[in-house]
């Protein structure tokens, strides 16, 4: 049970925060626009490894690590992605195993980048904007194809 003085101070904090640190309009727009990225029926490949979260502090002391390794899994499908930072852009080198020959697309909030894939399921693309990213691919299945998307991860 809170008292009136607490409630009043809390209300003051709310007003102050609303004035000094409001949600940027661009973020509200981004949230509203997120629904456009819905892929009903697609399997989500969850993030199973992120090298940036390794506890090996030694690698950070020896110099900035510019390469980040992400691994995603959905059932028997795995997608590995290496991310290289270059200012505000990212270069992505990845592989889908088993190989996906049909449509691999790098998704990011401002659009999609289709990428070519070789017979080993490897792909590479530069100029990906920093921020949330998701790899979408179609995996051939008997009688058709499954759509797989990697869990969104900010890079």
């Amino acid at each position, binding site marked *: 049970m809170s008292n009136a003085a607490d409630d009043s101070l809390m209300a003051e904090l709310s007003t102050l925060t609303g004035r000094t640190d409001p949600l940027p309009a661009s973020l509200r727009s981004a949230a*509203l626009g997120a629904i456009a990225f819905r892929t009903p029926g697609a399997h989500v490949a969850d993030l199973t490894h992120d090298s940036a979260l390794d506890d090996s502090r030694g690698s950070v002391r020896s110099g900035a690590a510019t390469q980040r390794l992400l691994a995603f899994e959905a059932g028997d499908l795995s997608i590995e992605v290496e991310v290289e930072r270059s200012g505000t852009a990212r270069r992505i080198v990845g592989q889908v195993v088993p190989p996906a020959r049909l449509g691999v697309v790098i998704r990011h909030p401002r659009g999609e980048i289709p990428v070519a894939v070789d017979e080993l399921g490897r792909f590479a693309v530069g100029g990906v904007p920093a921020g949330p990213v998701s790899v979408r691919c179609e995996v051939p299945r008997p009688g058709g194809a499954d759509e797989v998307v990697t869990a969104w991860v900010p890079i």
Partner: protein
Amino acid sequence: MAPDLAGDLVRRARAGDTTAWPDLVERYTGMVWAIVRGYRLADGDAADAVQTTWLRLVEHLDRIMEPDRVGTWLATTARNEALRLRRIAGRHVLVEDVDIDVMGTPVPVEIDSALLREERDTAVARALTGLSERCQALLRVLSADPPPSYDEVSAALAMPVGSIGPTRARCLGKLREALAPAGAAGLFEEKELGDVERR
């Protein structure tokens, strides 16, 4: 928003109703922002965390087990995204010669003095920075508009629901204490000046 109302919005969004999503965003966008700021993320990381949280909801829209608890789901996701980015940012901040406690060094929140209209605002903002990180995070999350439920606050801060009320009271008490000497602002400023001169 009543939980069942939020659940209805999730169910309608799942069914392809394009009017449901904006209502869902409007209800929780303040909370998601407050949570990532509560975790002291700098602007770029805060934007990434917010954006990723909403994209993750879209990604999981069909799989959410309890649509009525979407607020708690969003709070948990915002917390996870903030922690991830904070951890990564901490690593990039580490420099050869300096040993910094990654989780203990808060990113200073820039306060645009042009926005602070009164001395009171200044005093409150300054007093807030003197509180523990835990208190600052709790008060930041509680100050979201619309205010989050205690279940959502609990998920956002990994704080037991039962302790939120007492912690809120304690933190507001400390804030009030810190604000009390504000009346002697002149004295405080003289002391500061004295310190500078002594150097």
